[in-house]
């Protein structure tokens, strides 16, 4: 298959698949939604620890210099969730999404990597219903309210990564934060004399950002990474009418990777985001967040040994949005692997994660499964 055709086939496969309405987290109902994790399954399987160094995970533009050839990456993810809140236990929730798609390559003559991709910035998908009884015209009337949102914001990034000399990579990126959510609220009455009510609005969010980063490898067994990102405030519109702005966070990232032997990689990434900047713009609370992810990769195609690596990771993260003054947090453990085929021109990586979230009076448990297809024609 010609190279271009293979790349565009991956993009088309993702672009034509319409994400279904689903729910990301009970902690994504308020605020801007649940923050997306712009990571490949390979990085997620290592608890996100590889994120600062992974060329295909768009959080450090310096890593873009690590692309060695034209590459297309698409990620699909599904989660299965349940939670407890206020004495109510909810289970059997599941959702599917495509959180990352990217096309990248390298200009070998100038050792410059380039990348254009889209990842999930926040997701605000939920579908909740409640029943109540109200008094209308002196009579008790049972009502059922349903409130849903389907959509979120995406982060479109264009990035360049340069490798001026062996062991040093620097990069910069520009970001467009854009997206929309279809919001719906309805009420039905048990008394058919009352007409049901339904209101649907489309909310749009837009903003911009820039990012920069570097990766320095003082030895062949050690790499460190630093990156930062600044986003403007996001403009909000409901049905094309401006409704306000929300400050988007400044992000700072630091990473460490150690390879004591060729077949073993240990990577950790720390990320801080100033989500509290958005607090004045929201009805709920917004908090600064930090997360630390760390993981191991044993074997794999770069190790020269087993073609099938084993990846293990864990992650702790605080969550930005809460309906109360209590900030929620999340703990993840991950297990993953991958396989190459077609002479290393195709890669499939998978990860299974177990997430534990709690705070603000709620507890949530989720199984998350992600898979990526990487094509290098």
């Amino acid at each position, binding site marked *: 298959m010609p190279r271009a055709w293979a790349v565009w086939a991956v993009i088309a496969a993702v672009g034509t*698949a319409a994400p*279904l309405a*689903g*729910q990301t987290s*009970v902690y994504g*109902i308020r605020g*801007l939604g649940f923050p997306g994790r712009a990571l490949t399954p390979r990085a997620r399987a290592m608890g996100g620890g590889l994120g600062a160094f992974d060329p295909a995970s768009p959080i450090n533009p310096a890593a873009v210099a690590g692309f060695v050839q034209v590459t297309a990456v698409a990620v*699909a993810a*599904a989660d299965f969730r349940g939670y407890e*809140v*206020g*004495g*109510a236990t*909810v289970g*059997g*929730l599941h*959702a*599917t999404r495509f959180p990352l798609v990217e096309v990248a390559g390298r200009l070998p003559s100038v050792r410059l990597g380039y990348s254009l991709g889209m990842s999930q910035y926040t997701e605000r998908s*939920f*579908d*909740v*219903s*409640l*029943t*109540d*009884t*109200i008094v*209308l*015209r002196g009579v008790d009337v049972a*009502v059922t*309210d349903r*409130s849903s*949102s389907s959509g979120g914001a995406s982060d479109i990034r264009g990035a360049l990564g340069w490798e001026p000399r062996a062991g040093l990579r620097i990069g910069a990126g520009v970001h467009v934060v854009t997206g929309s959510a279809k919001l*719906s*609220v309805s*009420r039905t009455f048990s008394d058919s*004399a*009352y*007409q*049901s*009510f339904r*209101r649907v*609005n489309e*909310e749009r969010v837009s903003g911009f950002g820039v990012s920069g980063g570097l990766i320095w490898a003082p030895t062949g067994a050690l790499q460190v990474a630093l990156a930062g990102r600044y986003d403007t405030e996001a403009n909000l519109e*409901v049905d094309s009418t401006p*409704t306000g702005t*929300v400050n988007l966070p400044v992000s700072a990232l630091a990473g460490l990777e150690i390879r004591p032997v060729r077949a073993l990689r240990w990577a950790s990434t720390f990320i801080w985001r100033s989500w509290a900047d958005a607090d004045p713009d*929201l*009805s*709920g609370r917004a908090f600064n967040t930090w997360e630390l992810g760390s993981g191991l990769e044993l074997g794999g195609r770069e190790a020269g040994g087993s073609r*099938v690596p084993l990846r293990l990771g864990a992650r702790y993260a605080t969550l930005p949005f809460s*309906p109360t003054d209590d900030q929620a947090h999340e703990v993840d453990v991950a297990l993953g*692997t991958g*396989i190459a085929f077609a002479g290393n021109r195709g890669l*499939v990586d*998978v990860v299974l994660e177990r997430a534990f979230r709690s705070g*603000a009076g*709620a507890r949530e448990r989720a199984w998350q*499964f992600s*898979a990526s297809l990487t094509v290098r024609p």
Partner: protein
Amino acid sequence: MRRFMLLGLAALTAGLATGCTEDLFAPGVGACPAFCPPEQVAVVDTTLLDAVVNDSAYRGYVLPQEAGAMQLVADPGGALPASRVIAQFLPFAERLLLRAGDTTTGAILATDSFDIRVSVQARGGAGLELAFYRLPATADTSTTFAALDPYFADSTRLAIVAIPDTVTADTVSARFAADAFPTLDADGRVAAVGVELRAVDRGFVSLGSLEGADGPILTRHVQLDSAGVSVPRVEGKLPAVDTFVAPDVPPSSPDLLRIGGAPSARSLLRFTIPPRILDSSTVVRATLILVPAAPAVGAPGDTLHVLAQGVTVDVGAKSPLIAVLQDSVLAKRVQVLVGSADTVRLDLTTLVLAWAADSTRPRSVMVRAVPEGGAFAESLFGSSASPANRPALQITFVPPLNLGGR
């Protein structure tokens, strides 16, 4: 390993095919509002006392001779005067066919008798009797109640038939003698019959009419000449005209809204609803409240059904009505018992929603009786000129709700 990956991809594909709903809140469980979206639906219910403006009542939409029923009332000593039915039948034939399928006719040698059959559609009271009288062949829709007085006498009575108390909807027949219509030939073989209701106490009967495809039938039993042999034959005739009449009653106050009666009356109500409700909010229920100015009048025990209909164009009394399906009529009509002074509430939700969706629609409603014109039952309601019992609009709505709160 490849098998493991295929299983994983299969699970992912299965996830694509499904969606789900969170049942976050149940009665008695306090998950909301913390983990619910900030936008909550609020419902407001209010009564607009000045929503009805420029209302008027008009009479004459369905005349008694156009109605689907003819009401006979007996109210001895009561407020409602008695009424009478007039039925002028189509002319009988001069000759009749001897047998079906043959064009040979025979001359009528003699009349044996007449039968009349009327359809009872509704009744009220006990011990009712129908009295049939011979009327001049010229009796028609222009004949007044008073002009009939000489013909509703013992000398012109043809028959009296009791309506069994068990009969609520059935046919009643009476037989007249051969000489019941002595001037039949002179009148061009046209017969006319008057009907009156008799009751020990109070009562009414609604008879089917020609317009309702259930009119009276007058049958003549004759002897026919068939080649010198006399053979019996019958000939039935539908009315050319049937109607019912009552004494004129003095007009009531022009400030009142009238609905029903014979000829039928309708009331046209025009509405002004604040834009904050009609344009900016979502109406979920609207109810027109009509306050009686007096108890509903009509035959004792009778019932009036009241319906509110929108108009396609507001041109006053002749405003064409928006068609309503029969199912909707049955669902939305409101029953008013004669003698009742209860407030009447009519559902206008569909109409008000249509007004909100299209500002060019006339915000007018015609309130009428269904069916119309076949009974004396009539409701009198206060109009917008009546401060004490003016009509009102009770409206339940959801105020503007801007989604996107966080």
